[in-house]
């Protein structure tokens, strides 16, 4: 009756859920992959009092949620989670198992993959099922993002990958959805060797790049902190947020919470205006989820122009004051 063999599995990562929607993004992608494989999408959910997440996952498209509810699963613990999920995998044999490349995903999935003696690719920016071989093609940045590698796991199962947050778009919430919930019997757990004694939640800044509909992104082409600060004026006029490349942050022009890209945040904005950024992939992975990208750069050969809808070849220092003045007049 209850076949879950061959499903696409998604790790239910709910810490800081209302900020971090990675699991919902993975469900949406998981459904595409599952359709190609003619199978279902299952989210595995471990924790204490996780009912609401189970419901959210169904509302966002999961066919099945597999739940372990236990006080000892309250904290994210690599070894406990590895032991439990490796048993589940051996028992239910998913074809694909993906997790968000969150701090925990990146710490826990390698250990799980090793225990299962299977392959794992890191921080993928795309996943597709090859229609011929039906293998999962895992696209992952290499050499600092200069190249993309297409990785496959030909023989071992499940095919595992962690996925960069923000590269896939979640499905809308559907209250009418009905799914299946499975509670596998859970054994007693050994005392974990690594214990989180204290976990201080993040101090929430006002910056919410992930949810902004307009993002102004600045890079080294702005040449000074003073120039960079013009971006805040521009952002205010367009009711947007300011993001920055890693070099701009290292130069002290903006705080870490504004970091865009592979090691920072990914946006799903309607519009990104990228100013003085050269367009290294570490950065552009953070803005590729935007509907429209406009870039201003004085170098016509800047790689950033390869990914834009509109490329403006100009010196930001000359353009910014005129642009701000024009907008101020118009609004």
């Amino acid at each position, binding site marked *: 009756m209850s076949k879950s063999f061959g499903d696409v599995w998604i790790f239910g990562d709910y810490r800081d859920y209302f900020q971090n929607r990675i699991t919902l993004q993975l469900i949406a992608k998981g459904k595409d992959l599952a359709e190609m494989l003619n199978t279902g999408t299952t989210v595995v959910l471990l924790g204490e009092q996780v009912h609401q997440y189970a419901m959210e996952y*169904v509302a966002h498209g999961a066919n099945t949620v597999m739940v372990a509810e236990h006080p000892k699963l309250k904290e994210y613990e690599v070894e406990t989670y590895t032991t439990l999920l490796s048993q589940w995998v051996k028992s239910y044999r998913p074809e694909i198992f993906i997790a968000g490349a969150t701090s925990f995903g990146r710490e826990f999935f390698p250990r799980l993959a090793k225990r299962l003696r299977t392959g794992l690719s890191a921080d993928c920016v795309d996943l597709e099922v090859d229609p011929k071989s039906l293998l999962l093609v895992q696209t992952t940045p290499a050499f600092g993002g200069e190249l993309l590698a297409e990785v496959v796991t030909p023989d071992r199962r499940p095919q595992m990958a962690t996925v960069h947050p923000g590269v896939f778009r979640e499905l809308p919430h559907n209250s009418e959805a009905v799914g299946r*919930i499975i*509670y*596998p*019997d859970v054994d007693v757990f050994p005392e974990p060797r690594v214990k989180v004694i204290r976990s201080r939640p993040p101090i929430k800044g006002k910056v919410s790049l992930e949810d902004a509909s307009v993002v102004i992104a600045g890079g080294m082409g702005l040449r000074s902190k003073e120039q960079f600060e013009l971006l805040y004026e521009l952002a205010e006029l367009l009711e947007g947020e300011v993001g920055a490349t890693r070099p701009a942050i290292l130069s002290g022009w903006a705080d870490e919470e504004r970091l865009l890209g592979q090691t920072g945040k990914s946006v799903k904005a309607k519009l990104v205006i990228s100013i003085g950024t050269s367009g290294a992939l570490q950065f552009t992975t953070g803005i590729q989820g935007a509907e429209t990208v406009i870039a201003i750069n004085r170098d016509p050969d800047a790689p950033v122009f390869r990914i834009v809808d509109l490329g403006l070849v100009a010196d930001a220092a000359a353009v910014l004051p005129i642009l701000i003045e024009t907008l101020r007049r118009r609004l």
Partner: protein
Amino acid sequence: MIKYRESKISAHHNYLVNDMLTPGFVVGEPDKQGGFYFLADKVLAGESMPRISCRLLEEGSGNLLVELNWNRIQSNPKACIHQSIPGGFQILLSSGNVLLEVQTQAFANGYLTRIKARLYDEKGFLRIEPLGDSIKVHDAEKPVLDSPFSFSP
């Protein structure tokens, strides 16, 4: 294969039964005149209240205590009391003891209802009893309702 339990789950509202989420369930036979039943019906999107209908009987005698229809008292031969509590209601016996408690927790995008009760059928069999912060249903026949229950005309 690891042993497991399984249920349907609604994206909108569930009841917690046997430590599982379920969109709805029924114990006993609602259509059988005078007999025990407990129906926790499927709650439709847009509604935030659970839908509890039941015929509750006295332990031992099997006499009717109270009958609820969609959370409201319909028939009340033993003068039970309907009392509102935060997020739900209680049905008290005239002695003041709690016969049934129904409480709904609201999440950001959904609802979860917990029930507390110890209920017997007309033959004196225990059909529903407390488990953790909700109930356990003894029936092997416990069907999962993923669409609203329809009574016979």
